[in-house]
């Protein structure tokens, strides 16, 4: 099988899992959504008090375990870290603000599109623009610096975090919050979610699929390898929905499940997500997978996502089916400006270093 077909099939596994999970009880167009699921977990841990989005999503635990185990068996697991962790945390934070204004990570954007939600098309345009801007910084030398080997235990911390979540999910202690209404109360059976999460984690780890990477590589090096994975997700979610969720397919902008039709902020929200994803080296899916295979910088990024989700709800920035609150609009604009400043400063710093180096060299000659 050639590499593009392989990517398409790996994407297909993810798309099918999403359609099945929606059929068996996950919220509308939310068979899989990395941003929403981390947000639900933040709520379950009591980091935010939006009572309708609190649940320890078993899919996330499955994804982490799947990626951890398969990376360990194949030798991809390596404990690394120390490449601008605080910058990554902040980028993860703002990525989540953008995602919760659109209402979904890039994966859910594809899934929404595959069910006819055309707002996702507007968001996709924003996502591509955000990635395009990020690529310009990459071309000018943007980097978060090298990572280094760390003590082995550091690489296990993230899988251990997932294990703790699983324990909370099973024994349901009083301090863990579970929604009794709204999207947080809707979910496929725990075992099914765990298993399909595990399958998706393996598929993501083996394929290295990244929604931002697919578009970025097309712009940067004209390589469509990962784009085929994205097309696979789209095609198989669509096929899965036609078979399993036909009555829920709704082509249009209005009345979409857990989505709104504020064009401008669907566009800007996902532009912020695209920009942050490129500057981080991967979208929320990829960060979650990397965190599971020993990349502690990606682990810090995921905690940035979780804290971002908590603030998005605590500060009234997260959108809902009713639209985007003013705070959310302000949050996205601050996010875009702030992230651009970070990227610009990194590039300027690199340039300064390069001129200094060449001066030193010419002085030595």
């Amino acid at each position, binding site marked *: 099988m050639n590499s593009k077909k392989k990517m398409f099939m790996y994407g297909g596994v993810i798309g099918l899992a999403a359609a099945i999970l929606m059929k068996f009880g996950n919220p509308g167009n939310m068979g899989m959504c990395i941003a929403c699921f981390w947000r639900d977990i933040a709520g379950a841990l009591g980091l935010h008090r939006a009572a309708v989005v609190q649940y320890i999503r078993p899919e996330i635990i499955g994804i982490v375990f799947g990626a951890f185990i398969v990376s360990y068996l194949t030798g*991809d697991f390596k404990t690394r870290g120390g490449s601008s962790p605080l910058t990554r945390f902040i980028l993860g934070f703002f990525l989540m603000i953008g995602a919760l204004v659109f209402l979904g990570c890039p994966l859910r954007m594809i899934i929404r599109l595959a069910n006819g939600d055309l707002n996702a098309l507007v968001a996709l345009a924003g996502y591509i623009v955000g990635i395009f801007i990020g690529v310009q910084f*990459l071309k000018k030398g943007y*980097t978060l610096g090298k990572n*280094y080997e760390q003590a082995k235990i550091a690489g296990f911390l993230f899988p251990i975090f997932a294990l703790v979540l699983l324990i909370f999910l099973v024994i349901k202690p009083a301090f863990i919050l579970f929604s009794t209404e709204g999207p947080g109360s809707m979910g496929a059976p725990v075992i099914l979610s765990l298993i399909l999460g595990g399958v998706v984690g393996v598929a993501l780890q083996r394929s290295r699929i990244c929604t931002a990477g697919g578009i*970025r590589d097309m712009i940067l*090096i004209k390589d469509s*390898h990962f784009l085929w994975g994205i097309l696979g997700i789209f095609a198989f979610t669509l096929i899965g929905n036609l078979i399993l969720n036909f009555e829920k397919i709704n082509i249009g902008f209005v009345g979409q499940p857990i989505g709104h039709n504020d064009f401008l902020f669907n566009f800007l929200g996902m532009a912020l997500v695209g920009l942050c994803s490129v500057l981080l*080296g*991967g979208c929320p899916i990829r960060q979650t997978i990397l965190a599971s295979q020993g990349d502690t910088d990606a682990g810090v990024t995921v905690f940035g996502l979780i804290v971002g989700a908590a603030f998005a709800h605590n500060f009234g920035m997260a959108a809902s089916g009713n639209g985007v609150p003013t705070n959310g609009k302000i949050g996205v604009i601050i996010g875009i400006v702030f992230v651009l400043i970070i990227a610009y400063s990194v590039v300027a710093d690199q340039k300064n270093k390069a001129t200094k180096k060449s001066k030193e060299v010419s002085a030595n000659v």
Partner: protein
Amino acid sequence: MSKTIDARGRSCPEPVIMTKNALEADSNGIQVLVDTHVAVENITRFAEGKGYKVDVKENMEDYQIDISRD
């Protein structure tokens, strides 16, 4: 002896960008050092796509990728 690019410790997509820039400066061939398998895959795909011959050697802690014209 071809130029060596040290992309160890760099996260995706930096190793590919460093390879791309180096090949634009010296189109005859280069050597790239990386330390993740993902970087090996990405660089190999990129260089082979550009018509280069790619040879990967696995060392203890890293990978050495030789990229050359046939």
